[in-house]
């Protein structure tokens, strides 16, 4: 094989190989990274498992006790699916039906934002969070088709309550 045929071979294979590396890398590292995140959240949630869960979407305090103070608390996070998941989603979108590939990061985002709100309430010494609302919005969709960025934002907010210690 002389140099010229080798050169054309490399030129012809460059983009297919690059594409394979990008999508393959996205699949491999995306899975590793996302599984790590989910495992971390699992262990953090398990650590709180025994304690009382103070977060609810009731509009009134659950206990008829004197209230010392209250405050608005909120947490937000933006998460995005990996390129591989987006590719799978768009292929699946042609035929319709369940799109599993988006599920992972969407459920993760919602879980993590509620978990963080709970942690925030516990750390600032509040007894419970009522009237929880979780909102989802899509934040980066450009009209351009070649935009590789997609992100969803989850916001959780509620009213944190501290009961006064004197009455019990």
């Amino acid at each position: 094989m002389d140099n010229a045929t080798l050169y054309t071979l490399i030129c012809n294979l460059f983009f297919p190989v690059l594409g394979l590396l990008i999508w393959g890398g996205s699949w491999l590292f995306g899975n590793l990274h996302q599984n790590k995140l989910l495992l971390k959240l699992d262990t953090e949630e398990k650590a709180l498992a025994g304690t009382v869960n103070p977060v609810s979407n009731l509009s009134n305090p659950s206990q008829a006790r004197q209230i010392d103070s209250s405050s608005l608390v909120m947490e937000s996070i933006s998460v995005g699916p990996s390129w591989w998941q987006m590719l799978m989603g768009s292929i699946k979108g042609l035929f319709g039906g369940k799109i599993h590939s988006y599920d992972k990061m969407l459920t993760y985002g919602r879980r993590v934002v509620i978990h963080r709100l709970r942690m925030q309430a516990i750390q600032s010494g509040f007894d419970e969070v009522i009237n929880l609302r979780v909102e989802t919005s899509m934040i980066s969709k450009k009209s351009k088709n070649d935009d590789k960025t997609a992100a969803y934002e989850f916001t959780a907010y509620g009213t944190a309550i501290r009961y006064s210690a004197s009455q019990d």
Partner: protein
Amino acid sequence: MSQGMHLSNTETVPGKLITGSFGLVQGSTVRAKNVFKDIGAGFKNMVGGELKAYTELLQEARNEALQRMMMDAQSRGANAIVNVRFATSAVAGGAAELFAYGTAVTVE
């Protein structure tokens, strides 16, 4: 965050009595993403997961919308805002509007 102003997203301020109402107050801000952060987030998107640059940007923007709403309430002489709601919308490619609204009241 609340600097003397009581905020809540319930219809009352828990444990307090509402004595006067001043109507709807609102605050909003439009933020665009930074081009460099955008590129960074685009690469982070390859593996998915949390995009910290966007998280921070939107938290900042939401706090500003909240501040503006609180200034609105303060100028009317209210000391609390009840039934606070947030809304986010993408107004243009790469820009988001964050909007906070509620009812300004006085509590004792």
